């Protein structure tokens, strides 16, 4: 099945094919409330608030098999069912629109082009979870998108989809946009909650998990923009219909933001299970490598996931075609596999210097470490220094192993998974491209 995708071409978006779930009707300029509603927008709010109990909605999301699109791919329905409903405290739904993972730019386009799809998803999800005040935490740099979202939220209020006693159902809620201020770590859900409370973005020690102690000490669900924007379709068409799209436990569609050395960088909605080779080379998607060059490597899920060389991104070590799905991209584990992560698909051609690129990412992680945990605060700094030294021809043979050693000493030893995320790109680059690192020693 071919789904709609959407290509960025300068400021003038070029649209190629038709329709499915997240980007449905994007070609019809459904930015405005009227156009959006005309094409079936807000139907899921009518359906859920008039005829379904909150538990019915949760049940459909469970059946859909939807997994979190923010990177960790935790099943959304299961996360919702963990929310503590017995504490008697208010419950909160917070949308994670921090989108700061290098290579990822999908949520931004979804919010910019179809703000009402996220708002609709948040209303239905808030109803399911019993949240009467819900927040969209958006990275501060996207100020103009925050303004568009706020304007769209006002339209939803005017049409009775937000506010008191929505559609006469007795359910009331408010929805607010909250601006961050530039910190990658605030994408981590507990750092995000700290930031929303007006503090530094330092991740919290878990347990307790947000499902019991989240925002203001109350039970909280944090979900990615794309996860929440998938909910209206699931409610309208049923979880079972959603679960039939995709492959195996990777159900539904996924937004992939593709960038780097390709002919058609852009945001594509693909059905899970599309072969990587087709995604990369078909003119319907990335359109092959730019300037007729050859492929060297791909980071398939945002900068935090392992890099794979050409042979291993197109086929698994066992020789099976690699597919765009959680399972297929992970096949081979850390030795020969990677992850779908956030769907940030970064393509590198034969001219790319892997050492320079790896150093660049190490600089990023060093800059963005919140500094709470010593292994991460110090480790990211060491990694950057050692890579800088290598890059400038002053490295020693043992530096290459030192890099791997440092990443091992960070992995699993920090409060949040930033420490893992900072190490994986480096460990995998050394694993697959050791010769390139060694070539810098002789210079």
């Amino acid at each position, binding site marked *: 099945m071919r789904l709609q995708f959407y290509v*960025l071409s*300068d*400021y003038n978006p070029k649209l190629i094919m038709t329709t499915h779930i997240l980007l449905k009707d994007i070609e019809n300029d459904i930015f405005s409330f009227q156009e959006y509603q005309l094409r079936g927008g807000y139907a899921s709010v009518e359906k859920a608030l008039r005829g379904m109990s909150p538990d019915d909605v949760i049940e459909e999301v469970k059946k859909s098999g939807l997994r979190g699109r923010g990177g960790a791919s935790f099943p959304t329905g299961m996360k919702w069912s963990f929310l503590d409903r017995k504490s008697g405290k*208010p419950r909160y739904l917070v949308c994670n629109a921090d*989108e*700061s*993972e*290098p*290579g*990822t*730019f999908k*949520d*931004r386009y979804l919010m910019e082009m179809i703000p009402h799809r996220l708002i609709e998803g948040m209303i239905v999800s808030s109803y399911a979870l019993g949240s009467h*005040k819900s927040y969209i935490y958006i*990275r*501060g*740099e*996207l*100020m*103009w998108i925050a303004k568009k979202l706020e304007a769209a939220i006002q339209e939803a209020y005017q049409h009775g989809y937000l506010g008191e006693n929505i559609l006469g159902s007795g359910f009331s809620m*408010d929805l*607010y946009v*909250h*601006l*961050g*201020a*530039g*910190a*990658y770590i605030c994408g981590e859900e507990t750092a995000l909650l700290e*930031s*929303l*409370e*007006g*503090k*530094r*973005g330092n991740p919290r020690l878990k347990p307790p998990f947000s499902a019991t102690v989240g925002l*203001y000490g109350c039970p909280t669900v944090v979900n990615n923009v794309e996860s929440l924007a998938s909910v209206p379709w699931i409610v309208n068409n049923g979880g079972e219909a959603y679960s039939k799209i995709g492959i195996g436990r990777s159900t539904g569609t996924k937004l992939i*933001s*593709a*960038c*780097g*050395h390709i002919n058609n*960088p*852009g*945001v594509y909605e693909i059905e899970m299970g599309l072969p990587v080779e087709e995604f990369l080379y078909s003119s319907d998607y990335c359109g092959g490598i730019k300037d007729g060059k050859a492929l060297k490597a791909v980071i398939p899920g945002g*900068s935090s996931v392992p890099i794979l060389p050409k042979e291993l991104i197109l086929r698994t070590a066992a020789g099976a075609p690699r597919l765009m799905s959680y399972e297929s991209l992970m096949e081979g584990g850390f030795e020969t596999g990677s992850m779908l992560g956030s769907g*940030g698909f*970064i393509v*590198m051609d034969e001219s*790319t210097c892997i050492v*320079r*690129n790896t150093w*660049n*990412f190490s600089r*990023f992680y060093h*800059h*963005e470490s*919140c500094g709470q945990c010593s292994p991460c605060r110090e480790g990211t700094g060491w990694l950057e220094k050692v890579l800088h030294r290598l890059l400038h021809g002053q490295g020693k043979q043992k530096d290459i192993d030192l890099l791997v050693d440092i990443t091992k000493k960070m992995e699993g030893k920090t409060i949040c998974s930033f420490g893992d995320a900072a190490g994986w790109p480096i460990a995998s680059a050394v694993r697959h491209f050791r010769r390139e690192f060694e070539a810098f020693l002789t210079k």
Partner: protein
Amino acid sequence: MPSEVSIEFKPETMSKVTEIIARYPDGFQKSALLPVLHLAQKEFGGYLSTEVMDYVAKILNIQPIEVYEVATFYTMFRLKPTGKYVLEICQTGPCCLMGAEAMMSYLEEKLGIKLGETTPDGMFTLLGVECLASCGTAPMMQVGETYCENLSLERLDEIIRRLKKAS
């Protein structure tokens, strides 16, 4: 801004502040800190002086230290005056694959300053920043609230020319 001028939000901004505080449950007005610091930075000369931070602390009824520790954590808050226009060029991996480094050197040469510096006439500050979720239209930079995407040397010339003309 000269320090003798008393620090106080304009009435319109103040009513915006009140509206923002009301978004959060009673007793959690500290949640408004980031949004209010954005407003303060915009209104009081593009950076957060100690006086401005103390003023924000007073409005939100929190300790000044609670404001300082936040203002120093987030990269969008500036603690020193900047040039009239801040050019924030993305220097992260995906943008570098598409030539961000060449854009940075070109700007350094054109403006006669290094990353992190301000031109002597106070017009431009040049900064390197991290991924701005615009990797598909790389290389790119942010100027104020605007994203300038698909940069080329010609486009940089054009942007600089327009900014000079506008001022």
